[in-house]
């Protein structure tokens, strides 16, 4: 249940504006890849093209190839809904459904699609997903309480459990810890280490220590100036990026001598 991602010559546009230019990247399965770079350099935009979530924004479109184990996500007749059930996403701010209980939040991917699921199978899925998100012990006695009653860190782990319950091949995370305190952040990072065993994980982060802690490989995105497109500058093993980068811009950014 884990697939590799190969991106070839991907350009992302917002209307006429080229937001991300010519990205080529190969992401191994069962690995954690971190995207770092300054704000507005297109890393979140690029992340969203990996499950076609950018199409939600009016006028946004992508050109190029994104291959999931050799199958092009942008091929003719590919349904973005199918893509999204294979490539899950966790957002910057925890967003559990306010009308649903903790249990229903985990089952949201199943229930919202009206798939039939037996009571015992549902219980099992809830338990395994919440255990997978390291949240089971904290919420097992209040599964019927609303998900919005949890703390921010717990809500974020609930969102991860909800994503895992759909059984995707890839999990994308868009700055999943930027709204959380350090303790919750560590909990999420530990979780990312465990997720790696089942999923391909791609994470956008502004926290370079976090990238070093969780990622096997790191990609540095940069932008030359306002109005210019974002570009993938360098992609390598995390240790190489942070200790011995090939590009001057990467070195400046990771050493804090940027801008």
């Amino acid at each position, binding site marked *: 249940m884990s697939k590799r991602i190969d991106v070839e010559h991907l350009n992302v546009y917002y209307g006429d504006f080229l937001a991300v230019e010519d990205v080529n990247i190969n992401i191994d399965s069962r690995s954690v890849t971190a995207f770092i770079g300054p704000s507005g350099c297109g890393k979140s935009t690029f992340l969203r093209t990996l499950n076609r979530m950018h199409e939600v924004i009016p006028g946004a479109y992508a050109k190029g190839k994104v291959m999931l184990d050799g199958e092009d996500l942008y091929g003719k007749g590919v349904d973005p809904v199918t893509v*999204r059930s294979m490539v899950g996403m966790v957002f910057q701010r925890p967003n559990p459904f306010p009308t649903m209980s903790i249990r229903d939040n985990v089952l949201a991917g199943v229930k919202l699609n009206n798939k039939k699921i037996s009571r015992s199978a549902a219980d099992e899925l809830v338990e395994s997903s919440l255990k997978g998100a390291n949240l089971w012990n904290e919420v097992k006695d209040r599964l019927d309480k609303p998900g919005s009653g949890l703390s921010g860190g717990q809500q974020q782990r609930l969102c991860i459990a909800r994503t895992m319950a759909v059984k995707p091949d890839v999990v994308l995370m868009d700055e999943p810890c930027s709204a959380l305190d350090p303790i919750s952040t560590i909990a999420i990072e530990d979780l990312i280490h465990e997720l790696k065993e089942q999923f391909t994980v791609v994470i956008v982060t502004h926290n370079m220590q976090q990238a070093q802690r969780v990622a096997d490989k790191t990609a540095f995105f940069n932008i030359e100036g306002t109005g210019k497109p974002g570009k993938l500058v360098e992609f390598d093993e995390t240790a190489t990026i942070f200790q011995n980068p090939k590009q001057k811009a990467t070195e400046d950014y990771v050493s804090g001598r940027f801008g």
Partner: protein
Amino acid sequence: MSISTQSKSSSSSQRNTLTSGQRPKWLVPVVMVGAIVVGAAVSALITFSVASWAIFAAVLFLIAAPIAVTSIEGSRKGSDAALTYVVYAAFILAVVPLVSVIWTVLARGVPTLSIDFLTGTMGGITGLIDQRAVAEGGAVPGGVLQAIIGTLVITFWATLFSVPIGLLTAIYLVEYSNDGWLGKVVTFLVDVMTGVPSIVAGLFASALFGLILGPNTRMGIIGAIALTVLMIPTVVKATEEMLKIVPNELREASYALGVRKWRTILKVVIPTSISGIASGVTLAIARVIGETAPLLVTVGFLNTVNWNVFNDWMSTLPTFIYQQLMRPVAPTAPDPSTDRAWGAALILIVFVMLLNLIARLIAQAFAPKTAGR
């Protein structure tokens, strides 16, 4: 420490320098009493009446109190006082008519109310019966059951038509139009429809059915269509506002789980905003339930109960009130008709208040639940 505390407490009977130059507490109440007394005197100079007394007292107070405050505390506090009292006066001015209306309707409507009045109809009530009732005294003959049923049935049909149309229009505007030209046109038309006078809606429905069924056709369903025309924009606007405040993050969360757009709308967006939508719809019902003009031209009058909106004229509470006041059953003894009108008005107000109450309960019952952290 203890010494300074003592010295402070001993000096508290004297003036604190921080509070010096303030007006004494009794100043404004004294000015108020003065304004009331002088107001009474001025009112007595012309012919005395409670209304002129209240007006003179209020005007005198609004002039005198700020002047008194200014003379002690300076112009900043003075203008603060002036505006404060003006705001209070405006509030009282706004509340007086409301309380007066409710009081009048209660005072004149309650004596008419009885089980017979609520369960009886006007069938067989003639001028003779009214004249005898006036001569002999006793309960008001006749009842409003036909009007209550008519109002409820016609409003029900209007709701049945307008809620799906309004709801779907709002969903199109918020979720699908992407600010395209069609969305802009629909928004513009909805705004125009909000301002359509109700009689125009009535004439529209009447003319529409006149083309199909022949001129001067009147029946409940035509009235329901007229009310629908009035109700749709209200429902659209209320629903649109509610859908707009559903955070985009929830839609994205749902899409990211591989859920289709229409399912996202049906299972995430609408449940999240259902409390606001339901109370908006209820308030829209409350708005049209008291419409008179469009029903006069589309539904007509009837003295007996008619449940069937597809056949024959019907009676509704607003048109019943109009009819009883304008064309009393017994022109020489209009009192029973007037009483019936007030009774019907009371019932109508109770309906509207109940609907407002229901709207609040719905909003509370459906609101997304949050537990304490």
